[in-house]
């Protein structure tokens, strides 16, 4: 039934690595270049999901379920992290009425 799907593992592992590498780099550039905190958060999520993709690809490649289990942990931690991040963002929004990173320059020296 699924033999068509199994044929798809003919795609070499490097392709998946390229794909997730590109996605990861887009995430990194997003964090470094964007000034809006919400978009930075989204970029961080993109980085984590690129890693998830890599884990799944390796797990399929190595025929080993441990990589998939790790993805569960990453998803959980990403959810917890984004929760905390958004909470901090709301806190800042309440005090400054802005979500722009340039407001964050009180600490210097």
């Amino acid at each position, binding site marked *: 039934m699924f033999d068509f799907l199994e044929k798809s593992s003919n795609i070499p*592992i490097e392709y998946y*690595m390229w794909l997730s590498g590109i996605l*990861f780099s887009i*995430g*990194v550039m997003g*964090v470094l270049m964007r000034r809006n*905190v919400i978009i*930075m*958060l989204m970029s*961080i999520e993109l*980085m*984590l999901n*690129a*890693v998830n993709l*890599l*884990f799944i690809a*390796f797990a399929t*490649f*190595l025929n*080993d379920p*441990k*990589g998939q*289990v*790790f993805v569960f*942990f*990453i998803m959980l*931690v990403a959810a*917890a*992290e984004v929760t*905390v*991040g958004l*909470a*901090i*963002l709301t*806190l*800042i929004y309440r*005090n*400054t009425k802005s979500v722009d990173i340039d407001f*964050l*320059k*009180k*600490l*210097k*020296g």
Partner: protein
Amino acid sequence: MSAIITLSVLGILVLYLGIFNFKKVLLPVILLGLTVAFVLLATNTGNVLAADMHMLVFDAPARAFGCLLILITAGVFCLTPGNMEYATKFRQDVFGLMIFSLIGGIMMISYGNLITLFLGIETLSIPLYVMVGSKRSDLKSNEAAMKYFLLGAFATGFLLLGIALIYGATGSFDFRVIAEQCLTLQGNVSSWFEIGVLLLLIGLSFKVSAAPFHFWAPDVYDGAPTIVTTYMSTVVKIAGFGALVRFTRGGFPDMHVFGQFTFILAILTMTIGNFVATQQKSIKRMLAYSSIAHAGYMLIAIHCSTNASLVNIFIYAFAYSLASLVMFGVFMAIADKYELADIDSFNGLSKKNPLVAICAAIALLSMAGIPITAGFFGKYYIFASAIDSNYFLIVIIAMLNSLVSLYYYLKLIIAMFFKEGSNDVSEKIPALHYFVIFGCTALNILIGLYPNNLMMLF
């Protein structure tokens, strides 16, 4: 394992005690719980249960580091009375988060598997993001939390990419299996593995604030409530270095491949930390940069990775965090309460409170590495084992750095002993505060006198 479960239950108990208005018993319950966890961890036999799948390994170094973490956390808790005014309504939340964060720290120093390393780092960091921002109406605290969060999450991405590549190259998260793979392949490990290890080291050096990944540290230390800063500069740093040294000593045969990386890291961290610290006016920022510098000295032990690295880092971290506790304790008691942060706020302390001034001076001397203090032996052991394995250049640079550091530590000592104080606020320091300051100083000198006793733990 039982220590971790005890601490989890303690954390939840603290949250519930706060809700049902038993705030008076919070601190005794926490200290009792930490003692129980300490005893459980210290008496752990180190046997690995088959069901644990080698996830957490409580071997001798893990037990020593874990007990140190619990001890220092207890010290931080003892400093809380009088310093948590900003959080009177939700004090139990901050306490609970601190305990949860400690659990993450213990996982970080006892992991036997990359999954537990990752979970430990996150369990340590996520409560910290909240704790840093816990001064809710203060924009500086909010900003520090946001910065710490963004950079922490960013570093997590790199760490995870590293773990993914290591997994892809070796097919396992288990440290023993990874080490075996390295041995059997004998240098034929795919290049993913090396890139993975490098990315993982980068992720970890973010957490221990090693230069050039240190930019968040001064701002975050400055903006966070001082009690959280104390926690971060002691417990988080010990846990980070525990994880780092466990990783480099984890059985990978040729970790010297990354000698270049750790070499540059160590030198940059020491030099930037010390030189920028001399320029600081605010005590909090100065201590932040000095903690970066101390990370640099500990990175030397990581760089010349020998069998003694574990115990050397342990002694250094012990000495550093004792001194740090005293310094932050004194700073909170005499300056931070009155919203002062300048070095001038230490002026004339020796007249007002000579005992505390002497304790602070001993702590500063210990940080600078003057004999009969623990800090001297911390530095001595690290430098000695570096020279043993023929790393002369890095030791010379470290020595020069110690001289520079003496400058700004002496500046504080001079302020305390030879300058006239202007503010005549009569300080009322809580008893527990005194207990921490004197206890840590006594322990500091005790280690300075009998440093060999700590070696027995390993």
